[in-house]
């Protein structure tokens, strides 16, 4: 049982990285950024490619994934979203473009790399025992990374001018613009950093459980759940949601069989959304 918990914390940490990235974009722009899944997959396959081409080392691989993620994020913002925003396109339009991009990237990767599940094997897969649980080194790494991320991001949000700007835009975009904040620049920064995290998450997933071209959608959905189900902008709560989600997945997989675990996840999502609606009946708009 403790093993299940430990596993949940580790995969929760992985999910938290992606979730926080998604949340950065979602809470500042209010857009359901499906392309987050595309960057996730891209990051994973970049990690694979780099390790097959240049040999594997965790820093190298994750750094390349993060760089590619960052650049992709900026490209997505400048080339895909910005023209639409300028035209005052509706949320639906933006969502559909994001979906389109996801489809293109996921299938493009499928063509180039094949449909099967790939995994970076060079990391030590032998779990080591401590405190009665067996964990691989990558799992521990995930927790460490997530921890560092949350602390540093929280610090940036709290203490830096950029953080202040981000919080302002999240609260009230109109007023922020009136006060002279450059919304376009902030969008670029947010998309860039969110996608950096997405790429990193993808890379970690490639090392931990392996990836296939179409897992990006699932990863993005789980990330979005962490942000939307409770609707909290707090990084800690998003991370906690991630761990809870993974825990529930682990437990249901254990009891009912692995094939039901994703269904269970989304059942929980529905329950959470409903509870949120009941608690907040005057705010009827989703």
């Amino acid at each position, binding site marked *: 049982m403790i093993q299940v918990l430990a596993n949940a914390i580790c995969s929760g940490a992985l999910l938290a990285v992606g979730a926080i990235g998604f949340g950065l974009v979602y809470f500042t722009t209010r857009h359901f950024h499906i392309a987050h899944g595309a960057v996730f997959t891209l990051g994973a396959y970049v990690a694979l490619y780099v390790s097959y081409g240049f040999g594997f080392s965790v820093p190298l691989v994750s750094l390349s994934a993060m760089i590619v993620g960052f650049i992709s994020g900026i490209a997505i913002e400048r080339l895909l979203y910005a023209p639409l925003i300028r035209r005052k396109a509706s949320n639906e339009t933006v969502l559909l473009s994001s979906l389109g991009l996801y489809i293109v990237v996921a299938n493009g990767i499928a063509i180039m790399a094949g449909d099967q599940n790939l995994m970076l094997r060079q990391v030590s897969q032998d779990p080591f025992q401590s405190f009665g649980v067996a964990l691989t080194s990558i799992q521990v790494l995930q927790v460490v990374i997530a921890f560092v991320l949350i602390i540093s991001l929280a610090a940036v949000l709290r203490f830096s001018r950029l953080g202040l700007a981000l919080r302002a835009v999240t609260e009230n975009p109109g007023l922020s613009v009136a006060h002279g904040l450059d919304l376009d620049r902030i969008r670029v920064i947010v998309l860039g950093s969110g996608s950096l995290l997405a790429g990193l998450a993808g890379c970690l997933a490639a090392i931990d459980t392996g990836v296939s071209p179409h897992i990006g959608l699932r990863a993005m959905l789980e990330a979005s759940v962490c942000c939307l189900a409770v609707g909290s902008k707090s990084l800690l709560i998003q991370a906690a949601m991630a761990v809870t989600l993974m825990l529930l997945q682990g437990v249901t997989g254990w009891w009912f069989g692995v094939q039901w675990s994703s269904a269970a996840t989304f059942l929980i999502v*529905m329950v959470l959304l409903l509870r949120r609606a009941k608690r907040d009946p005057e705010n009827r708009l989703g």
Partner: protein
Amino acid sequence: MDFPHILIMLAIYTLLVSALNIVLGYGGMISLCQAVFYGVSAYTTAILTTWLGWSSIPAMLVSGIVASVVALILGSISMHFRGNRFVLLTISLQVIVSAIVLNWTGVTGGTSGISGIRGPSVFGFMLTTKWEQAGFAVVLAAIALVLLSRFHDSPYQRAFSAIREDQLAAQSLGKNPKYFRFSALVLASLFSAVAGSLYALTTGFIDPTSFTIDESVFILAALAIGGSGNVRGPLVGAAVAVFLPETLRLIDIGGGSAANIRQILYGCALIIMMRFRPKGLAGNYDLS
């Protein structure tokens, strides 16, 4: 080119894309669970006709009822949600139902699906040739189009679209959002259900892979490309959905990667449409 088969698929996708058009094109609700109604109905029809020996029409009716029940469930759960949370809810529903279909092996046959489904029979006449079946499908689609042309520009549609523009103002004029949402979802599910029954009856074999979230995404892309908010747009979308793969097959692109290439084309079309022509090719409602 297998013309009867193409006609049947055209009819099916006209129904599916029009169904989404009701919910999204007029009502503004992005739904990524259309394949749920499609699949639930296909499986119900398959089970009733193949394992219980029912004839087609009663099986289709019951499939429609089952699909509407699912729609009612979705409606009651999603009552307070619009926009992003609604999308998330539909995706959740889709994933859950896909998993059930895949894993409830006793009822659905799991990954092997259900095979040997008899063809459609109308009032005792078995429609055995492909052309007869195509005629059946076309008639159903035509009936749907007649209903949709009545739907378009009706007071119901006017109120439904008003709720989309400003729900509070619509309520202040006496419009009940619950009624409109439920009825629209049920209507959409019924259209999708007919498509599902048609698919099961005419292809003789169904399995879970035809009813996943990829299919829902596909229907959404078809609507976005064809255009929404009128009767023509979904027709164009359905045509694109059906003819593009056929054309690709003719040109024989890529072999094993054909499916992926097709998807990429749809993705690109989606991006291009949203960027340059949010009305779609033939639509009424500017999504921007």
